[in-house]
């Protein structure tokens, strides 16, 4: 068994957690103490998931998924005006969308482990199961979180060899939406779709329906943009395109995040010396923008460490998943890998100004108990999968 990988799955997350706690204590004693309590709770969740045999979690994925869907619906129904992302339990708030991520990964891995299923069955079943939490979270509204489910869905299919014949149908329509604002990019997409159809030697029906879909979305998106999107959603996207022009709202935060990072320089301003956190600059310094506030105080050296740790964690996750022979374990590992890649890219990408303010946590570092608990569970599952794989491997040899 790969001791180094197991170590990577414990030491790297622990280091990230510690770095997050250090930064939280610099921002506010209150957040630090609460997060420390969550860290202890998460450690026991980690132990639970790594000690119980995987076949149990394989079965238990269904109830976890169903409960999370129920909670998502409850949060939607019980919330007042404003975002309805949380359920209140006594003095703690819990974000059911985080639990849904765990539920989806488990249930998707279970379905993928059945090797007799046809590609189209996998595509539809996983798609439907992703669509439910996707719709419930987008209604909260929480766009960035809802995309998580699509991301995991798509990359699981991709890594499990679903034919490009189907994948094109999954990828091209969203791309059509994105490129609809730029005629040139849209043209390139259209030509690309055409070439793809020729390359895989698709029939006329396939080509026509793919191209029609792309055209339809390409022309309807600008209409929806003007008519259906909420003003604040539009504002977020616009602010992302030209943050300097929008000094308030989300553009303000993106600009301030960049000033925080940039003014940190190579060595940083030092622990507790960041001036950007706090109300006038980075209101979400402890959540969405913890990377920026960390980078301000610990500089490029600190940010680079975050990059290297996440790079290492994701590489180790994907590589060890790829080596697993058992389909369930492999799907589980890839699902977890997809989770980490999305969260790292979306969160850090936002901090660096690549995306509008998104609202997904940076794993292990962002303040909040729900995502930390789920991440501990994911790591526990990963360790368990590695252990079981290596013991079965030995028997085979």
């Amino acid at each position, binding site marked *: 068994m790969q001791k180094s990988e197991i170590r990577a799955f414990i030491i790297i997350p622990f280091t990230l957690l510690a770095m997050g706690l250090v930064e939280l204590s610099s921002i506010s004693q209150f957040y630090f103490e609460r997060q420390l309590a969550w860290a202890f709770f998460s450690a026991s969740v980690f132990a639970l998931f790594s000690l119980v045999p995987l076949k149990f979690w394989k079965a238990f994925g269904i109830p976890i998924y169903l409960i999370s869907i129920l909670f998502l619906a409850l949060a939607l129904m019980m919330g007042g005006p404003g975002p309805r992302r949380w359920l209140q339990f006594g003095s703690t708030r819990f974000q059911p969308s985080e639990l849904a991520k765990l539920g989806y990964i488990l249930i998707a891995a279970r379905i993928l482990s059945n090797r007799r299923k046809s590609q189209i069955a996998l595509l539809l079943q996983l798609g439907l199961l992703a669509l439910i939490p996707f719709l419930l979270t987008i209604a909260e509204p929480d766009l960035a979180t809802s995309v998580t489910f699509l991301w995991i869905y798509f990359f699981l299919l991709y*890594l499990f060899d679903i034919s490009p014949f189907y994948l094109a149908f999954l990828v091209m329509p969203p791309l059509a939406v994105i490129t609809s604002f730029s005629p040139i990019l849209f043209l390139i997409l259209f030509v690309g779709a055409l070439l793809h159809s020729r390359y895989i030697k698709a029939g006329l029906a396939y080509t026509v329906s793919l191209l029609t879909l792309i055209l339809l979305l390409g022309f309807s998106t600008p209409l929806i943009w003007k008519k259906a999107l909420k003003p604040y959603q539009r504002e977020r996207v616009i602010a992302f395109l030209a943050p300097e022009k929008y000094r308030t709202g989300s553009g303000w935060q993106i600009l301030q995040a960049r000033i925080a990072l940039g003014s940190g320089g190579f060595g940083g301003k030092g622990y507790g010396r960041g001036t950007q956190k706090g109300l006038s600059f980075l209101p979400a310094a402890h959540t969405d923008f913890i990377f920026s506030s960390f980078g301000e105080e610990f500089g490029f050296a600190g*940010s680079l460490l975050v990059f290297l740790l996440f790079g290492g964690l994701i590489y180790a996750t994907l590589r060890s998943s790829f080596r697993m022979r058992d389909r369930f374990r492999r799907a589980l590992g890839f699902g977890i890998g997809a989770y980490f890649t999305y969260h790292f890219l979306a969160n850090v990408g936002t901090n660096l100004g690549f995306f509008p303010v998104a609202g997904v946590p940076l794993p292990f570092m962002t303040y909040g108990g729900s995502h930390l608990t789920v991440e501990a569970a994911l790591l526990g599952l990963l360790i368990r999968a590695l252990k079981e794989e290596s013991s079965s491997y030995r028997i085979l040899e």
Partner: protein
Amino acid sequence: MGNSVRYRSFLYLFFALWGLLLLRLVKIQILDHKQYLKQAEKNYIKPLRVPPLRGKILDRKGRVLADWKPIFRISVLGEKTTKEGLTELSGLLHVDIDPDTIIGKPGYIRIKDGASLEEVISVEEREDRFPWIVVSTVPTRRYLYGGPFFHLLGYTGEVGPSDLKRNPEFKPGDIIGKSGVEKKYEEVLSGKPGYRFYSVDATGKIIETDPRPPIPPVKGRDIVLTVDRDLQLYADSLFREYRRGVAVALDPRNGDILLFYSKPYVDPNVLSMGISQEEWKKLVERKDNPLLDRCIAGLYPPGSIFKLVTGAIALDLHLVNPQDRPVTCNGAYRMGNRIWRCWLPSGHGALDFYHAIEQSCDVYFYYLGQKIGLARFLKCVRNFGLQEKLGIDLPGEKGGFIPDMPWYEERYGKGRVPEGLVLNLAIGQGEILLTPLDLAFLTALIAMDSTATPHVLKVDKKSLSWHRAPVEREVLEHIRRGMYLVVNGEKGTGRSAQIEGIDVAGKTGTAQNPHGKEHALFAAYAPYRDPKIAIVVIVENAGHGGSYAAPIAGKLIERYLKDAEK
């Protein structure tokens, strides 16, 4: 093994994006560092927290008890302050400033509320010496009637360390309710602070106001109480010649607290402006304890008022017929080889139940106590639930103290608890202690058979929770007849509570006090056949309840019922 092309391409895709982000990070943190550093330093925008208007507190008729007035607040930008500057400022403003808690701290820190116009001008004249100062006008709490409402309304003050820990929304310098209604309804009253923004230069001097649009504060909500302003002020005037006492009145039909008066008190206006630690210590150590809310946290022996409970228990157990005269009072009662005295040395003779209450004959109730027996007596008393908090919507309420058998067994040993204890308890002396609110609640319960949990916030009738007296209905009718005689009977002990045109029913009490003169107690309700007010008056160290507490209660009842007619 899976498809290695797919696996590799995914890995490459991720690391390509990872690398792209890294390049961007290098650009921001290393290549453009100087430019961003300049922006961070030059573009110093400092937020100043703007306190919201606290909701007003109104009495039952909508008259204002607490609102706000504008004051000058002086704040300094901690990170720009200097020791010399702060020392000079401290002299100009006549406040103690601890430089260690300010120098180098980020953001604006409040150093004085309620600065006078002279002080503000003297500071602004020396603007170049303190470029890091901000003078703002903020609302502060004003209590229109001061002290008499202190225990009810409470006061406001700066958040303490424990509040800051509990709620991340609080920031140092915020004002919150510290006691009474202010504390209980903090969330309703407080509103939400807003912000103004200032661009400052390297010295902390404001170079631009509102570089960002200000975030306006949100006003707190007004609340309407059940108390009557005039009744409260009238009570204060009646207590003028006494140093310590309590008056609590409620509407027995719905639990509305009409009067909530506890003396001594302090002026909440003074406390809310902030007082020095020394002054605070003095207040806490004062012997007459002005910070103690006697209405809900003062524990008193109920005295003869408790005979109502003893009587109710005995009648409910059918131990005595109210028309019978089971015992003759010749000034003392013998049980075993001990003698218990009646308060009237010459004796009351043979009395029925009603007249025993009227004249508060100790011997009659010694007799009832003995018939009930200690263990049963304690059990039945506890059925009234007064050992628990009643659940009034004010902080700091205490439950009454009603011991049970195990408590006595611990003190005397199992099987060695003297049966004679019940005699003292039966006339309200001894270990049992109740709050004035408990007594008022008990009176309301007797007056109406059932009553609602006492409360000071005006609420919808549907949301009330109700309590029933734990005895049969006709028992209470006998008690009420006795209480009527106390005020209206020929030999009644509470005749001084009589009011022209209104039938009052009541009970006097005199509580033994090891520290001095006895406390005078009086509990009453009126009108006798249609109760609209139940009241308890206690005058500490005054003497007999009938002479001191009953007249006050009578006047308060009269005032309230006459006002209600208008």
